[in-house]
């Protein structure tokens, strides 16, 4: 059956420089039997100027909104609306000042009373959020009000109220202003005009490609139009927030943490299904209040075809070389790798190490320089005989050079692929090594253990000696290497291909639509209910219903008189490609 999917992305898909653009593009192209409406929030002006990627025909419309520039909409509220705003905003910040959603819930075994209190606060937060959204929809905007003195005053009152967080009570005026500004930014999706019947109200399900700002439109579509929400998080937004927390006072940080925690909890509670990208994200989501029954891990899909040749013929490699592939940055802990390699050289003096990758940013470049210096210090240049020119056993190379034209060649050049990171989300390099049929040694970080299963060696992070011993064990045993490599390739082909990713989402879409269908009332030209407008055949593949049938969501917002919205007709894609 045809499902109309509202894909919501923040700083992502249709933009050329988007984050998860590749994944979304594969998903949309892979599911040609469905129809996609894309709702994109752009992150900055540059991103908008760079334009979109070419869109396949199943994308029927694209609506975009800037998150970076919300100019004052000039909406002036009347007295009653102002009071309503102050009430909702006060409730919202009071829920924040009462602490984060995650502090008291979850597996910590807190007594029932406090869980009840936490649930009440979560309820309060949700109600206030939807109240503000309704107000924004009724009045046409919220930006001016969120920037007003009334908002700051409500925030101050909430911070000084009894029962507020200790850190919130210490908030000073600059902190209040900073929090109000952050709130204004975070709540910008509330002012969008996407929640009408011809917007997100007309889709069968919302798919938010990340938590945070992208999930907010999905939440509101669920609230206004009853559209089920699917949330995909390859990296948990809340965790990213903690790691990227700005330098600010404790009051600001605790209130913002509470905001993001509450928002995440509300999203998890309202979502029909949540698909974490790996077990690590899954544990965070469970911890933040996601119901275990709603979680379906969907591994990211990667294109296996470039590695096919290398993976099928694993013997071609230099048996004495280790290879590391990735972006060079401090989190990859190449220093530890070099120390481990020094230990390896004590056991196996002929071994070489190829470090393949480009530095990321200025910090990465500095780190690369540091690593080069360390390598030169640890390993003197070596020559084969007294008359040849020497060479360092550690080589730093970049993909695209004469020796390593492609990524697959990088993996092909080594017998063992090494991953030495201290921080890692989903280890893409490791999956590529698995596709290439290499035996791997990796550190136990992020989703590594889950990805590798039993098909490679895993050592603790920041332990060069263990890394060295594992590498030596593999270097000395070619047969084990071959076995591990073949098993790794088989595992990767089963779990981490694009096809499995697309198939998994296809199944999830159908599951959501079958369990929580959006009930719509079909209307005829006169606006009366039309019986049998959606025949049983509508549920078989293809398009059987008449294209001009007029549908509105039941229980959704009051439709504008005389002009019911076409739900199934295809509006032309908005904007130029």
């Amino acid at each position, binding site marked *: 059956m045809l499902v109309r999917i509202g894909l919501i992305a923040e700083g992502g898909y249709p933009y050329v420089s988007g984050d998860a653009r590749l994944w979304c593009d594969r998903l949309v192209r892979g599911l040609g039997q469905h129809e996609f409406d894309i709702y994109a929030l752009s992150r900055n002006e540059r991103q908008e100027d760079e334009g979109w990627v070419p869109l396949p025909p199943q994308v029927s419309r694209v609506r975009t909104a800037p998150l970076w520039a919300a100019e004052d909409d000039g909406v002036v509220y009347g007295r009653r609306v102002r009071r309503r705003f102050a009430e909702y905003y006060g409730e919202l910040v009071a829920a924040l000042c009462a602490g*984060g959603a*995650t502090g008291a819930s979850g*597996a910590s075994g807190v007594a029932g009373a406090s869980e009840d209190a936490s649930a009440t606060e979560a309820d309060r937060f949700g109600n206030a959020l939807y109240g503000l959204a309704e107000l924004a929809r009724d009045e046409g905007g919220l930006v001016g009000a969120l920037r007003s003195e009334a908002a700051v005053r409500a925030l101050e009152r909430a911070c000084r109220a009894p029962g507020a967080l200790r850190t919130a009570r210490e908030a000073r005026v*600059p902190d209040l202003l900073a929090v109000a500004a952050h709130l204004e930014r975070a709540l910008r999706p509330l002012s969008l005009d996407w929640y009408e019947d011809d917007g997100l109200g007309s889709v069968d399900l919302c798919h938010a490609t990340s938590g945070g700002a992208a999930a907010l439109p999905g939440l509101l579509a669920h609230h206004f139009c009853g559209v089920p929400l699917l949330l995909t998080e390859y990296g948990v937004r809340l965790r990213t927030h903690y*790691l990227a927390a700005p330098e600010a006072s404790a009051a600001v940080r605790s209130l913002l943490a509470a905001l993001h*925690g509450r928002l995440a909890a509300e999203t998890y509670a309202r979502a029909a299904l949540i698909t974490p990208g790996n077990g690590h994200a899954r544990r965070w989501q469970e*911890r933040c209040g996601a119901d275990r029954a709603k979680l379906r891990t969907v591994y990211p899909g990667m294109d296996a075809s470039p590695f096919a040749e290398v993976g099928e013929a694993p013997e071609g490699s230099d048996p004495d070389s280790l290879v590391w592939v990735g972006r060079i940055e401090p989190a990859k802990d190449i220093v530890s790798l070099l120390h481990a390699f020094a230990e390896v050289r004590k056991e196996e003096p002929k071994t070489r190490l190829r470090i393949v990758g480009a530095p990321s940013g200025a910090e990465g470049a500095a780190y690369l320089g540091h690593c080069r210096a360390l390598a030169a210090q640890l390993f003197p240049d070596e020559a084969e005989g007294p008359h040849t020119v020497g060479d360092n056993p550690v080589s730093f190379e970049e993909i695209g050079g004469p020796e390593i034209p492609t990524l697959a060649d990088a993996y092909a050049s080594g017998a063992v692929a090494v991953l030495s990171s201290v921080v890692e989300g989903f280890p893409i390099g490791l999956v590529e090594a698995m596709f290439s049929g290499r035996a791997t040694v990796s550190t136990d970080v992020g989703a590594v253990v889950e990805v590798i299963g039993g098909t490679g060696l895993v050592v603790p992070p920041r332990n060069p000696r*263990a890394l060295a011993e594992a590498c030596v064990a593999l270097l000395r045993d070619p047969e*084990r290497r071959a076995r591990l490599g073949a098993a790794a390739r088989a595992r990767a082909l089963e779990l981490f291909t694009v096809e499995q990713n697309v198939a998994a989402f296809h199944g999830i879409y159908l599951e959501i639509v079958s369990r929580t269908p959006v009930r719509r009332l079909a209307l005829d030209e006169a606006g009366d209910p039309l019986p049998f407008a959606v025949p049983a055949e509508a549920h078989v593949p293809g398009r059987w219903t008449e294209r001009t049938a007029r549908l509105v969501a039941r229980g959704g917002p009051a439709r504008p008189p005389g002009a019911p919205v076409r739900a199934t007709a295809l509006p032309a894609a908005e904007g130029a490609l």
Partner: protein
Amino acid sequence: MSSGLGGLDRPGAPTSPGTWDERSEPTTGPRSTPTRRTGADPVKALMHRHRDLCERAVDPLEIAAGLEAHGISDRTASRFLHRDVFSLAEEMYARVSRGAEAAPGPAPLATPRARADWILLTLLPGVLCAAAVTALHLTHGQSRLIAAASGALAVTLALRAALSRGPLAPTDRRHPTTARVSWLVGYALLGDGLLRAAATGGPDALPTGAAEGPWPLTTAPVLALTLSCVPAAWCAHLLAVRARRKLSSSRALAEFATSAKPLLLGAFTLYLCALAALLAIATTALDQPSTYPQTLTLGALLFLCRLLTSHGFTHAPVLVLTAAASAEATALAALFAARLPGCAWLATPVQALIDTGGQAAIPTIACGTAALTLLLHATRTLTRASAHATQNQP
């Protein structure tokens, strides 16, 4: 997968020899420091190692995220007798002593700096205006007309440039006030003469550009006003800087409002004093009659408008400027309309005002009322914390 791989080794973590054992995490080879005798309370040692993180954290999840970023996984957490990183982080969060934590004073907000570009630009209108006035004095006839036109153009452009940046730059350009301001300034230049002429049955000729004659040009107020761009910018800058300081040091919004009010009034008074001094110099130099009341009220009005606009309050200035400009226009129009047969009564109130207070009464009352209204408005809006916050948002 499992069927074909039954014979495979399972090199997960623990089986491979020597790769995973008790010394794994604590001893990282020869680099490790000798203080790893963790003894009975390994969590304490861990907390010591991550004390910055623990002291900074606002909730357990922040510690969990930080620990993971330092490479501590659930497996490592099990060595601290915890099921996962979250419960380890919870213990660490609970054990951090927060009572004694002396919260460091908040970093003072960045204050706007005086920059050479706007300082120089604010000098420009005054200098050009002085040059134009000099040219008017030195020329006659046709060339005087040309000098007046080019002088007016140059001063307008300079004013536009001076007010487009620095502390007086508007945050929102949607409500242009140029026409209203031009009218008010134009009235200051020509209005008194026209009013006198209209009251006595004139004007019989166009202004000649001279300070004497039937329709005189009063250049001293305009010269003083353009020169006062410099003190206006400095006063606004002073207000912004002091308000930022107060902002970073105040704890409550009401406290800020109380302390911002004297700042605002101080800046306003300072500007008026500077304008009065400049006007005194200008009238003496040009040897023109003194025009203190109407110029000071007009200056106050324009300064307050600019101050409000630069803080994002555009609505009230537009309204008040319109009111003042139309009041002046009405007075003039009433005098001319009174010449129509049977409409002589129209001029009565204006004539009464002129009789009691001279020609200066009209602009003084119009601008004075407007300025007073704006001053009251400003003491309410510009003392809000949110009015001074927009400047620190990128």
